[in-house]
């Protein structure tokens, strides 16, 4: 090779990584080779810190078609169909440039679904930001919402749901996670593989520029005062071109002319040419001068690692090139043949007939794992798990309820989701703001079934108790899906943490994964994919984000018409509470908002009964006995009841005497966030039937009150004394409008 080489000490790899490289190739690296290895060895691409921990998660199951390792998880949903779904972080780009960061997050996650061969039909988003009243948070929220909205709306994919948490630990390092799901016929599955030497490698879509240079590397370090200079690492999206790429790609797959397919995300062309070769047991050779460039003076290494958006990589048999070109031409999309598949096991890049890269594919795709140390975090020693708050006086309860309903993490997210098209595609039957999970029908695919999707996280609980916090997130996500009547079938995760080189941070990572894994096993839910985002760490003040797993659980309804939302439907219907309330107040909204305390017991998942409770709830809804269902989570029983009332524009009368609980304290009954609890409404004649379904397995189920026409929220204690008496409209007005007022400068 005549290409200039770079000396060993100037390469930004660890000692172990360098050893692995030089053992394999025994010569100096060229500059493009070094750039490719650096980016593929980055945390974002290589999962080097997380890889030793992730095998704890269960990945097998009868429905699993593709598990972790592919671009997205694929599960069998019957009727010859497969559901494809994925969740990913775009934290670092969004912190610097919230509009483009969030938009290209959506762009990237859509490509992950598309490159499995599925039509993307729904999007989800999860934001973790500082306090809502903070000006920087408002700026971020305004632009990430617009980024997700503009991109998703323009590309014509409906938003199916999401979640937002506000917490000071996200002040500098916001977390922006995005998800997408799609459906396809099982026989149209496309894989990111180059299996046959001689096949052509075609690059479709946008030109390659300097945006997103080293994006994966940027995402693999902490945000510091110098991060502003990394703004060029943020990609710029073009949803209009993405829409055309989606249609062209799906048309090409239907025409049977696609042999392998890979999207260009992190590490750009480098990732495509190495992962397809390694997965197919072949090699790849490309001519760099064939790439269309946006800037003429780009260096070869920049071209190879650029993360410019809206590009797809196709592996095509030589005889199909003409046919696929005609499809691309119809959509007026640019493309070029980059090179072809070889049998060498190597990635070779030529530039004007000079070989500038000649590396074994596996060297790029399988870098060595890092050995991270874990140690018990000191902050946990300061917590008093046995703490219970001082019992509030009766005359304080109305105001406590008002405060909780107006708090950052409880108020309506309508200001955000109104900016998203929730209707396009004609799939959504339970929409944002109506149910615990989004429900999409599959009539477009000639099926009566429906899929239910949810995002869930609870950073505060994961901070206070990483193990039970992690388990709780999984239980909560499955409960969300069950509450609309869907059986949870699979999950994919996005694990957002601080700097993994800090042993105390890494300990929380290990424990969260253990909690997730144990809950997944107890619930029988396989993990079919995931993403890890480390270095969400403010090194200037040494503040790591709270441990923030975000879980995407997908569920299946055999008959989509049986799905329920959580609005109260009619006066005089009965309200039934499922599950036992425990004195688990640690990490609750009540402890945080009212008592400003981190103490107390974080809710523990009852592993032995988790699966039974979920399946009983699903069966109750399937049998048509429930008119509404809501799982109890943030804010406890009071918030869940009130959300049902607000959505149905009806009131309630509840007596706490009948709440199955290990304690008689009214504040715990009202605000504990114990898992495995649901509220179900039913007509009078169905109440006993529902209670009997749960009694079979000795799960507590109790009639606690009624829906009322009177628009009042009324709760009594065992002595029939009124504890809470609030006008529905007043509570609803604040809950519904506060975010808009904050964001539109009315506050």
């Amino acid at each position, binding site marked *: 090779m005549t290409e200039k080489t770079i000396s060993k000490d100037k390469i930004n790899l660890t000692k172990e990584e360098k050893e692995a490289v030089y053992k394999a190739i025994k010569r100096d690296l060229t500059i493009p080779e070094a750039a490719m290895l650096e980016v593929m060895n980055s945390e974002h691409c290589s999962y080097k810190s997380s890889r030793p921990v992730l095998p704890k998660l269960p990945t097998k199951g009868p429905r699993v078609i593709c598990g972790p390792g592919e671009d997205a998880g694929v599960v069998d949903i019957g009727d010859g169909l497969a559901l494809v779904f994925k969740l990913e972080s775009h934290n670092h780009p969004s912190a610097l440039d919230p509009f483009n960061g969030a938009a290209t997050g959506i762009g990237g996650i859509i490509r992950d679904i598309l490159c499995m061969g599925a039509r993307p039909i729904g999007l989800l988003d999860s934001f973790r930001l500082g306090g809502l009243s903070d000006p920087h948070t408002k700026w971020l929220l305004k632009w990430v919402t617009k980024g997700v909205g503009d991109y998703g709306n*323009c*590309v*014509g994919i409906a938003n199916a749901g999401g979640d937002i948490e506000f917490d000071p630990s996200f002040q500098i390092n916001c977390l922006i996670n995005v998800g997408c799901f799609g459906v396809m016929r099982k026989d149209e599955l496309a894989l990111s593989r180059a299996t046959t030497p001689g096949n052509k490698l075609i690059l479709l879509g946008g030109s390659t520029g300097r945006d997103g240079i080293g994006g994966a590397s940027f995402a693999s370090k902490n945000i510091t005062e110098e991060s502003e200079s990394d703004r060029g690492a943020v990609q710029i999206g073009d949803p*209009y071109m993405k*829409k055309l790429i989606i249609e062209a790609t799906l048309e090409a797959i239907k025409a049977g002319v696609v042999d392998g397919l890979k999207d260009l995300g992190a590490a750009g062309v480098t990732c495509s040419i190495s992962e397809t070769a390694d997965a197919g047991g072949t090699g790849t050779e490309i001519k760099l001068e064939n790439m269309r460039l946006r800037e003429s003076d780009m260096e070869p290494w920049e071209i190879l690692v650029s993360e410019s958006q809206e590009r797809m990589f196709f592996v095509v048999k030589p005889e199909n090139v003409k046919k696929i070109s005609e499809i691309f031409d119809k959509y007026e999309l640019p493309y070029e043949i980059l090179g072809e598949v070889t049998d060498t096991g190597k990635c070779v890049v030529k530039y004007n007939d000079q070989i500038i890269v000649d590396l074994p594919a596996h060297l790029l795709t399988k870098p060595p794992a890092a050995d991270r140390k874990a140690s018990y975090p000191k902050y946990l020693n300061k917590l008093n798990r046995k703490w219970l708050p001082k019992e509030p006086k009766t005359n304080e309860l109305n105001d406590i309820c008002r405060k909780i309903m107006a708090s950052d993490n409880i108020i309506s997210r309508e200001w955000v989701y*109104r900016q998203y098209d929730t209707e396009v595609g004609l*799939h959504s*039957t339970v929409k944002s703001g109506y149910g615990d999970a989004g429900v999409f029908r599959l009539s477009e695919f000639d099926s009566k079934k429906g899929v239910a999707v949810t995002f869930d996280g609870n950073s505060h609980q994961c901070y206070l108790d990483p193990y039970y916090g992690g388990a709780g997130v999984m239980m909560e996500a499955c409960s969300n899906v069950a509450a609309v009547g869907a059986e949870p079938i699979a999950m994919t995760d996005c694990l957002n943490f601080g700097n993994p080189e800090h042993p105390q941070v890494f300990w929380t990572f290990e424990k969260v994964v253990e909690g997730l894994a144990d809950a997944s096993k107890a619930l029988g839910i396989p993990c079919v994919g995931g993403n890890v985002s480390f270095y969400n760490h403010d090194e200037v003040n040494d503040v790591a984000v709270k441990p923030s797993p975000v879980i995407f659980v997908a569920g299946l309804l055999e008959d989509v018409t049986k799905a329920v939302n959580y609005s109260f439907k009619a006066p005089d219907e009965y309200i039934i509470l499922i599950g036992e309330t425990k004195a688990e107040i640690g990490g609750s909204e009540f402890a945080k908002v009212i008592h400003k305390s981190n103490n107390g017991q974080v809710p523990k998942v009852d592993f032995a009964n988790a699966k039974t409770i979920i399946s009983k709830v699903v069966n109750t809804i399937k049998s048509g006995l429930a008119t509404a269902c809501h799982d109890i989570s943030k804010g406890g029983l009071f918030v869940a009841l009130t959300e049902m009332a607000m959505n149905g524009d009806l009131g309630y009368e509840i007596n706490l005497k009948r709440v199955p609980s290990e304690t008689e304290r009214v504040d715990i009954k009202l605000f504990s966030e114990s898992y495995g609890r649901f509220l179900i409404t039913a007509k009078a004649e169905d109440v006993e039937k529902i209670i009997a379904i749960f009694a079979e397995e000795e799960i507590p189920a109790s009639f606690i009150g009624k829906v009322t026409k009177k628009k009042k929220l009324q709760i009594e204690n065992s002595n029939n004394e009124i504890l809470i008496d609030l006008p529905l409209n007043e509570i609803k007005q604040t809950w519904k409008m506060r975010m808009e007022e904050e964001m539109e400068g009315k506050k």
Partner: protein
Amino acid sequence: MPMRVIVIQFSGSTCDRDLVSAMKDVMGWEVDLVWYNNALKHLEGYDAIFLPGGFTYGDHLRAGIIAAYTPVMKKVKNLANEGLPVLGICNGFQILVESGLLPGALIGNDTLRFSCKWTNLRIETTRSAATNIANKGDIWRVPVAHGEGRYFLDEKGLKDLNENDQVVWRYVNDNGETTKVANPNGSIENIAGICNLEGNVVGLMPHPERATEAIISPWGSEHGKFFFQSLENYFGGR
């Protein structure tokens, strides 16, 4: 005989397949979905032409304007002038306005935000091809989803529009009143959709194709069907 209609798929249309689904699966019509450049040669022989919603050309320059200058729109204009029903929904309405088939302009929402919500539409005239089975004053529940849907027209134009009975729908509250809160985008006089003088060219921002099946409406609304049934009636009545 079922209606036979064409949906023109522009570069960047996103509601084309939804429109096909509503008209084919719900209404039982014969529907052809044709890429805009191929449609140039295949525009004859249909009962109506539909311009679907979406973000043609990424809304670059101004929503609908680039699509309005595609060769196929010249042909659409000729057919519209001959009396063929031409219906534009959302981005399709923007294209109709930009191509001069309908008066006025659609500018950015007054909130400066995209807005997706279910709205109430009051029928202002029954002489349009899309409302002739309704009664004046009826209210349809149909969703909107747009960032540039604020209808605007100068004073003189607005006077003519009203006098010529060209306002087809207005946004209203549950009591049928044109309030500020009921107006999702700040449209002048709460206007949601209009027609030309003859009533055969109709444009509206709300999406009737998203409101033809109760299961996908939080209100169980199938009012979007009235839009398509009106078109059937338009032919029955001719």
